[in-house]
């Protein structure tokens, strides 16, 4: 130990200090170069979308664009809700109750990102083996609650942050 201590001299200290300051400097220059590629202020400004849902009949759905991605707004019939809730959680690759995917008291409204969680394609509605959505790209089947049932997608279709502004308007984001 004492031998090694003797070896550490002023020059070693200066080297280490210079390398450290240099590394911090390089990092400080590289970070802006990397971060400039993240979404800019204009992209972030598109963070919310308001949608009028008054004209959607039960059993029908619409697709709106939010932050460049499609969002499905589906007004489900009571049969569809019952079907979604009858599914056993053990049958789901990504177990999640249908109740946790909708707002309480607004069970008929399913609002979710229309983006397949596999590689980002837009699934087709009323297709697939589970009465829900089917992604044509690599064959993922989603049920009437937008939960993954079969295929390569790892998770359920994502529920974005949204709220009911009033009974006819949903604000996404």
């Amino acid at each position, binding site marked *: 130990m004492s031998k090694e201590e003797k070896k550490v001299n002023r020059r070693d200290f200066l080297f280490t200090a210079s390398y450290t300051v240099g590394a911090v400097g390089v990092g400080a220059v590289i970070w802006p170069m990397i971060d400039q590629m993240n979404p800019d202020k204009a992209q972030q400004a598109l963070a919310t979308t308001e949608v009028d849902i008054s004209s959607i009949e039960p059993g029908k759905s619409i697709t709106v664009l939010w932050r460049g991605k499609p969002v499905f707004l589906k007004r489900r019939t009571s049969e569809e809700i019952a079907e979604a809730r009858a599914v056993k959680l053990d049958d789901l690759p990504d177990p999640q109750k249908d109740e946790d995917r909708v707002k309480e008291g607004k069970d008929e409204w399913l609002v979710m990102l229309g983006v397949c969680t596999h*590689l980002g394609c837009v699934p087709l509605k009323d297709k697939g083996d589970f009465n829900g959505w089917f992604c*044509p790209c690599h*064959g993922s089947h989603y049920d009437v609650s937008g939960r993954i049932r079969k295929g390569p997608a790892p998770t359920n279709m994502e529920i974005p942050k949204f709220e009911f502004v009033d009974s006819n308007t949903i604000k996404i984001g």
Partner: protein
Amino acid sequence: MSEHEYVPKSKAAKWFNDRLPLLTLGAHLTDYPTPKNLNYWWTFGGILTFCLITQIVTGIVLAMHYVAHADLAFASVEHIMRDVNYGWLIRYIHSNGASMFFLAVYIHIFRSLFYGSYKSPREVIWIIGLMIYLLMMAAAFMGYVLPWGQMSFWGATVITNLFSAIPLVGDSITTWLWGAYSVDNPTLNRFFSLHYLIPFLILGLVVLHIWALHVPGNNNPVGIDIKKPSKDTVPFHPYITIKDAFALLVFMIIFAGFVFFTPNVLGHSDNYIPANPLVTPAHIVPEWYLLPFYAILRSVPDKLGGVILMFSAIFILFVLPWLDTSKVRSAVFRPIYRQFFWILVIDVLMLGYVGAMPAEGIYLVLARVGTIYYFLHFIVVMPVVGYLEKTDPIPMSISEPVLTGGAEPSLARKVNDKV
């Protein structure tokens, strides 16, 4: 470098060459002793250089008319096709040129696999070549995005989403790549910037590739080391240049055939539909040259697993020189490996075919079988066959099989001799 020192003839040339030895370099490239038995599979290096230059020249011209904006890109490509003088020709050369480039590079890579050109002492040439190949795929992918048609948009979406499979940071990386919350204008803009950059990176690597080649010199169909210069070599110019030029002309005829007669056959008609973020085309396929990897990706029923396997399929090639245990380079003298080589060729072609088909039924089964064989070939077949195979006798020199009408076992050295 050349065995004999080059001395410029004129005083002015000598003055310049003493300050920057460009003339020495030129003389080295002209005199460069090349094995005299190189066959036409060896002409693809020159063809690939031609492809790179064609892509750079046509690309620079196209960039003078193209607009990298989500609202304008599609229209600007149509503008090139209809309004710009000879725009149709330049764009068709560029888009078909990408396919020709890959056609040539695949032949070049398989030639290397057959004749063992990746083996010692040429590992670094091989690795630089693979880096070029990776950059080519990146450049081709980004270039395909630029017209901002349906296949551009959804191809970009699928490929960038591959990165979302990375645990924990995947989504942040994808958003960072996009510069937005989906593939959007910022994505198109940066892809254009990188698409313009990458060919020049490739050019730099090509210089290193050739430099690394000129240290040990060319491999050859017999795969044995040769003395340079000797009766086994010829000067690069005019012997190889004229052979390369002839092959290039034949290649250009095929190239022109695509450009003038079937310019869209290698593309996808959906890319003439402007990008629509709300509708995914019914059947997404990448360009043909990426199909084998796409088949590997889709053969795995797990997202992360598929992505890992797809990237492994490329990166396994980097360690190939150390997976191959055979002391003999050329498959000409390797009766067992030679058969596995052709199985690999068929396997990759089959993967390419099923990559273009829907991922279901028999296609999925074939994709899985093909994927398993692909990895077995490199991880099991190459090391094991290298140990167990009884290779044919290799000739003492390139001239010998020519002079004696075949490799005479009595003249051949033993396999375990240092080759």
